[in-house]
């Protein structure tokens, strides 16, 4: 494969840890031709990011390439000196790191970080680079690129940062782009838009991708060819369709089986998983590395393995691939409890009229000189209404799914519920206690009961504490278990989130993205809470771990009556777990209702877009989103007045009404509310644009739908 743009041959990478060397990538070969999109999937911790790091020569300290060659455009990268190799980056090889939260320099405006590589590599001037930056940001679906360019990273939501990073990677249109989980923080509409963009760049400009993702739906959409990694070893390699339709390796099958689906009935079924966990990489088994977890394993599987051909352009590392061909992953799914009939008790969390505003921009943003004698300085920084009036009730044992566009205020809402942020306006009650104005000290009992899994696991873990210390603390703080049992409990918690017990001695920087995420989940569970705000808790997890975690959360809910505010952009996951779903748009709820109500017609026009944009693993075609959305960029909203926030993008908008008056609440059914000026019968019902309902009376009250 000498015409390959990038070819990796027999790459082996080890990390030096206190416990001994960990082989994170073992004898991996991989090739990417020009204009090709190659996927790299696999369980969290299987070495995907390590491969990316090796190609970029940016492995963490303590990592060493113990074998193999990496060639780019025919030359061995190891033969370049540092500077030459560095010069390739950005210009010829672009990259998006897995963690969008820490990959942007907190002290530099986002726009400058994107413009910088252009100025360095393309030699363009500052103003030209700026113009190009705005263009890139525009492509990324930002409504007001200039504002984003002027913002600092901490002022952006997770998805916004991720898009900014993708924009930076694309800045110089490199030949090869390594995308490490580029869509974890993106909501489906933006994800779809970015996937479209990537696709266009590939076909038009011949870019190649190494696409690392656990999101099989996205992989199916983007990639032509997929490599499946497990515990550092290549398990299977195949063209996309072949892989998804005729997976040859048991592990691949397990992954596919773990996927949640969007079809009803929701929340009553458990996801199927791959039981067990990654093998101990300190001492990997000599034979099939997957054997311990493989339902098809048989005698002889403990023999050393080589990779072999399994079909057309398909290779697999399984002794028994021929024998088991066609056998389905055994579904051990059992039904979960169903509380729907019992109903829930009184409100656990009760939110009324909640609002939160932030100011944007740099040190001097918004400072203007007001003419006059003497001239006055006025300080009127631009303000973002992150949460713009939310009413919400969460009852014990209830899971409220929160979906919505990136930057719509989901994380902010979650933080407000836990008083991690002081609301600008409105009330938050927890178990009858008004927490929004209580002093921190009085919140202590509340803190034990209400926990959060942060969207960004990496920065939410103290870099100087081992996993064990991190997990032990809540146990000690709330006296959950006596001191001598804590070590064991830490181990239990780790296992609950599918991590080896030995990880207790690791520091966060020694974990992969998904592993950190799981530690964060374990930490939230450690306090034995009653209510957890889960902010994208599974976004960094591969489907099998995701399934395990979702099942775990579901079990806890069913057995202990836990409540969750479950924030995710993955509708299928949300559907799987939630009793009710709230669709958020620009700080307000566009639609709320039970999972079934929200996921079936009538839809809010925005909900419809979300559903239509969700990637499908079955390979079915996506509906034409352009019919569902106006050209306006995501996040574009009504002009500052009271109008509908979705106005600018809504294909069914009513000029003169939607842009001026706040949308009324329509309630097609009990517990189902849609904030829209459209009359109930005018609301879209299928994935096709509804005809704009002309002359709908503003504020008309819809009758309650059939029960």
């Amino acid at each position, binding site marked *: 494969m000498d015409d390959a743009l990038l070819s990796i041959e027999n790459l082996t990478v080890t990390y030096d840890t206190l416990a001994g060397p960990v082989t994170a990538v073992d004898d991996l070969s991989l090739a990417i031709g020009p204009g090709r999109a190659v996927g790299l999937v696999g369980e969290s911790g299987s070495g995907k990011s390590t491969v990316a790091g090796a190609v970029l020569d940016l492995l963490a*300290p303590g990592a*060493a390439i113990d074998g193999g060659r990496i060639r780019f455009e025919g030359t061995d990268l190891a033969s370049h000196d540092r500077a030459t190799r560095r010069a390739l980056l950005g210009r010829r090889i672009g990259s998006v790191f897995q963690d969008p939260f820490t990959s942007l320099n907190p002290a530099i405006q986002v726009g400058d970080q994107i413009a910088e590589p252009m100025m360095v590599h393309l030699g363009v001037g500052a103003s030209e680079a700026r113009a190009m930056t705005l263009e890139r940001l525009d492509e990324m679906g930002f409504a007001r690129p200039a504002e984003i360019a002027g913002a600092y990273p901490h002022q952006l939501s997770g998805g916004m940062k991720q898009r900014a990073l993708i924009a930076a990677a694309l800045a110089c249109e490199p030949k090869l782009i390594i995308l490490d989980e580029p869509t974890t923080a993106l909501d489906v509409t933006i994800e779809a838009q970015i996937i479209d963009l990537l696709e266009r760049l590939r076909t038009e400009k011949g870019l190649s991708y190494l696409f690392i993702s656990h999101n099989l739906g996205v992989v199916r959409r983007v990639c032509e060819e997929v490599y499946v990694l497990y515990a550092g070893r290549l398990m299977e390699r195949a063209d996309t369709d072949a892989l998804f339709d005729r997976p040859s390796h048991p592990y691949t099958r397990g992954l596919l089986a773990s996927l949640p689906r969007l079809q009803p009935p929701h929340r009553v079924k458990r996801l199927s998983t791959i039981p067990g966990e990654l093998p101990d990489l300190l001492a990997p088994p000599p034979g099939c590395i997957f054997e311990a977890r493989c339902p098809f394993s048989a005698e002889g599987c403990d023999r050393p393995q080589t990779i072999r051909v399994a079909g057309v352009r398909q290779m697999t590392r399984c002794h028994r691939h021929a024998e088991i061909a066609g056998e389905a992953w055994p579904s051990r799914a059992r039904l979960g409890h169903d509380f729907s009939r019992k109903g829930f008790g009184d409100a656990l969390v009760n939110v009324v009229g909640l609002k939160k505003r932030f100011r944007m921009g740099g040190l001097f943003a918004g400072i203007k000189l007001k003419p006059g004698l003497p001239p006055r300085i006025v300080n009127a920084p631009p303000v973002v209404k992150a949460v713009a009036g939310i009413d919400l009730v969460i009852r014990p044992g209830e899971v409220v799914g929160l979906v919505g566009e990136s930057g719509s205020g989901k994380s902010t809402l979650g933080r407000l519920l836990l008083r991690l942020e002081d609301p600008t306006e409105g009330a938050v009650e927890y178990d009858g206690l008004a927490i929004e104005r209580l002093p921190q000290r009085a919140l202590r009992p509340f803190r034990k009961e209400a926990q959060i899994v942060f969207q960004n696991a990496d920065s939410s873990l103290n870099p100087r504490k081992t996993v064990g210390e991190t997990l032990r603390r809540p146990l000690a703080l709330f006296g959950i278990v006596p001191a001598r049992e804590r070590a064991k409990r830490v181990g239990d918690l780790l*296992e609950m989130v599918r991590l080896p017990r030995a990880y207790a*001695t690791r520091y966060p920087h020694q974990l992969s993205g998904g592993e950190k995420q799981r530690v964060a989940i374990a930490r939230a569970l450690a306090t034995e809470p009653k209510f957890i705000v889960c902010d994208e808790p599974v976004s960094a997890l591969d489907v099998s771990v995701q399934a395990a975690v979702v099942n775990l959360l579901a*079990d806890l809910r069913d057995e202990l009556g836990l409540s969750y505010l479950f924030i995710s952009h993955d509708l299928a996951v949300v559907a799987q777990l939630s009793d009710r779903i709230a669709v958020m748009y620009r700080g307000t709820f566009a639609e709320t209702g039970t999972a079934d109500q929200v996921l079936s017609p009538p839809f809010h026009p925005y909900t419809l877009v979300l559903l239509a944009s969700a990637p499908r693993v079955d390979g079915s075609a996506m509906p034409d989103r352009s019919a569902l959305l106006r050209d306006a960029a995501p996040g574009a909203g009504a002009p500052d007045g009271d109008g509908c926030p979705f106005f600018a993008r809504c294909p069914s908008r009513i000029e003169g009404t939607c842009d001026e008056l706040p949308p009324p609440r329509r309630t097609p059914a009990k517990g189902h509310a849609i904030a829209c000026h459209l009359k109930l019968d005018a609301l879209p019902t299928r994935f096709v644009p509804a005809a704009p309902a002309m002359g709908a009376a503003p504020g008309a009250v819809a009758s309650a739908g059939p029960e």
Partner: protein
Amino acid sequence: MAEASVDLEAAPIAPRRRARRRPLPSSLVAGGLVFAAIILVAIFAPLIAPYPFDEMHIRDRFHAPSLTYLAGTDEYGRDVFSRMIYGARLSLFMGVLATLVSLVIGVPLGLLSGYMRGAVDEAVMRILDIMMAFPPIMLVLLIITLTEPSLWKTSVAVGFLFVPAIARLMRSVCLDLAGEEYVLAARARGEGASYILLREILPNAWPPIIVEGSLRVTFAILLAAVLSFLGFGIQPPAADWGLMIAQARGYIERAPWIVLAPGLAMCVTVVAVNLFGDGLREYLDPRMSARRG
């Protein structure tokens, strides 16, 4: 509970058996050993020093280094080498005590004001501004005149002088760290300010504290010298490196050894303390790996 937690018993307890200890950085070892040696010398000064620190051999004044007087003699004919050894006591005492005082007060103060922000921060910082703008000489003078001066008082005073500097540094570090999400996570857990400060923020703030602390030891020793220079020093004939240098500065040309010996001692101490600090900082950083890429 969940199926994920089955067969717990089968799972091996965390494999401590193979865990090896992080290797000590060489700077930590080297600096630590030298510093320990200096401390030992200080403790056992009477046993090591060939002469009492104040014994005069007036006939041998300004004697060049020789076998009798390893580092020569000073203007009274006292053995410079012995004085240097005794000097370690006072200088280290001063340096270490002053630094401890400043750290013990300054670190919590800085942490608090950086974390509390708002009114507490402003109040603490403005008070420190005043403290810091208060000229050291003035303070020392106050102490000397209001009370009979003594080494430990001077050390404590110097420690106080250093408080604002330490506190300000801590505050700036803390301002930065307080914005980290793991701090937010601790707050979400309902941790009190003291835990957050001591267990979440402080461990990440060690590097600047260590660097600052080891430099402060040096500065305190130097300040003692400067005080001697300005006439507010240790009582003669006590040997203190700073005082030795201050008093011998007039003989730099005639008898350079009188200055060089304590200078060298200070130099070694400074390098050892700071090397130790560098090493400690490295050792405490989990991300610094023994193996470098």
